[in-house]
Structure formats: structure tokens, C-alpha cells
């Protein structure tokens, strides 16, 4: 066992734990917005740590550089896709699950959708 393999193994383990928690979050959360929250965040750090772990395990600077490129790509693409999903879901007429009593106040985005004809016509 070299140091590279030990560090890489630790990073891969951390990454898999976070990916597992992301999956558990998708299962446990009450609605799509909260599921996206769990899915986006946990999988971003999970995938980053896993890829970096694989890069370090190989032990050459080429692999580490390449894994950094992939990490930057994930950091940019993951939030964009989850934002697009959340916005499309809202415009299609799904409303977020709100626990507290004051439902109007907790949903600031509804007034935008209802006052903007362009956004409203998407609704089914």
C-alpha cells in the first residue's frame, strides 16, 4: 500500500457515503424541491470526492489534473440541471410542500408566476 492508495481509498469511501446519503435523501424528502436539494448537494461532493480519489489512487499528476477538470465540470453542470428541473416543475403547476401555517408568505415565487403571462401559459 502506497500513500496514494491510502488517501485515494479514504476519498472514495467518503464519496460513496455522501452518494448513499443523497439517495436516502431522495427517498425520504416530502416533495420534488426538497428531493432536488438532497440530490444536488450530496451528489456533488460525493462525485467530486470519488473522482478525486480515483485520480489520486493512480498516483500520477496527469490523472490528478484530469480529475480536476472533471470536478470543475461537475461543479458547473450539476447546479444548472437541478435549477432547470426545479423551475420547470414549478411552472408546470407543482407547488412546493410547505409545513408552516402561513402558506402565502412562504411562497414568494407564486406572485411572479401568476402575474407574468409568459410564465403562466406553461402551466397545465
Amino acid at each position, binding site marked *: 500500500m502506497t500513500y496514494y492508495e491510502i488517501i485515494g481509498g479514504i476519498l472514495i469511501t467518503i464519496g460513496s457515503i455522501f452518494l448513499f446519503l443523497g439517495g436516502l435523501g431522495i427517498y425520504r424528502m416530502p416533495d420534488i424541491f426538497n428531493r432536488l436539494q438532497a440530490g444536488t448537494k450530496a451528489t*456533488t461532493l460525493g462525485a467530486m470526492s470519488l473522482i478525486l480519489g480515483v485520480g489520486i489512487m493512480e498516483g500520477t499528476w496527469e490523472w490528478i489534473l484530469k480529475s480536476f477538470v472533471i470536478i470543475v465540470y461537475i461543479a458547473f453542470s450539476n*447546479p444548472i440541471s437541478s435549477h432547470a428541473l426545479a423551475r420547470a416543475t414549478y411552472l408546470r403547476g407543482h407547488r412546493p410542500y410547505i409545513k408552516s401555517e402561513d402558506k402565502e408568505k412562504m411562497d414568494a*415565487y407564486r406572485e411572479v408566476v401568476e402575474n407574468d403571462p409568459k410564465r403562466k401559459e406553461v402551466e397545465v
Partner: protein
Amino acid sequence: METLTFNQKLGRFIVNWIFLMLVWIMFTTTFASHEILIGLITTGLISLFSIRLFTCCNISILSPVKIFWMIWYLGVFTVALIKANLDVARRVISPELPINPGIVKFKTKLKTNYAKMVLANSITLTPGTLSIDIVDDTFYIHWIDVKTTNPEEAFKEIAEDFEKVLLKIF
């Protein structure tokens, strides 16, 4: 679409070229002369055709001060990302599922579209927040544990740290 002067176009072209060349070197991971030559030609052509599409910034973005703030931003962002993950992990594991979700809004001082995009992406990856839409300068954020619905307080809670650094870059 905006009209650009020759100097602006040249500046964007150079920024684009340098950035693409860096990515090329990171992917090929070699400094052999033929690889570098092909890389220069390919990335040069791509950046020539995509002056309007890919570039966000003029050549002033390459000044050392701005590069320092970019690296600083990466640090702030990484800390927030790790915090976000521990936060989500805590919420997922705890049996009673401690969430109080809702959508809040706040206004930003950022002007350019690219700065707003970076801020929205960072917000999505920080603890308990997910950006849903941007209307002009108002952000609409899904918050997993709403602490306040007041726009100013929400801004302080969610975005102030990022915006301070972003205003220095863009």
C-alpha cells in the same frame, strides 16, 4: 445583440484562447511540441468562432488582483459546499426530518448575467438553498429551512458572502 468594438473582440478572443488552451493542456497532460501546436490551432479557431458565445469578460479579468479574488472565491465556495453536504446529511439521517421548506426572494447588486449565473450556481450548492428563478435582479430561492421571509435578512443569510467577492471580480 450588443455590438463590440475591435478592441473588445480582441480582448475576449485572447481570454477565450488562454482559457481553452489551459483546458487543452490539462486534458492532454503533455508539453510535447506537436501537441501544443495542434492545441494552439484548434483552440484558436474555436475561440475565433465563439467570441460572442463563450466569453463573459474582457481582458481585464486576467489582472492579478482579480485572479486572487477568484482563488479566494473558490476557497469560500469549497467551505460552503462541505458545510452544505454535512447539513443535508444531518437532515436526512435524523428520524424526525427537521425541515421547514418555502420560497424566499432577495435582490442582488450584481449587474452582468455571468455574475448572476455564478451567484445562482453557488447558492444552489450552499446549505439548504436551491435557486429557482432570476427576474431582473431578484432571486427566487427554495430554502429547506426558512429562517426569515424578509428579503434583506434572507440576502444576509444566503448570499452576502458570495456577493462581496463577486463584486470585486465582475
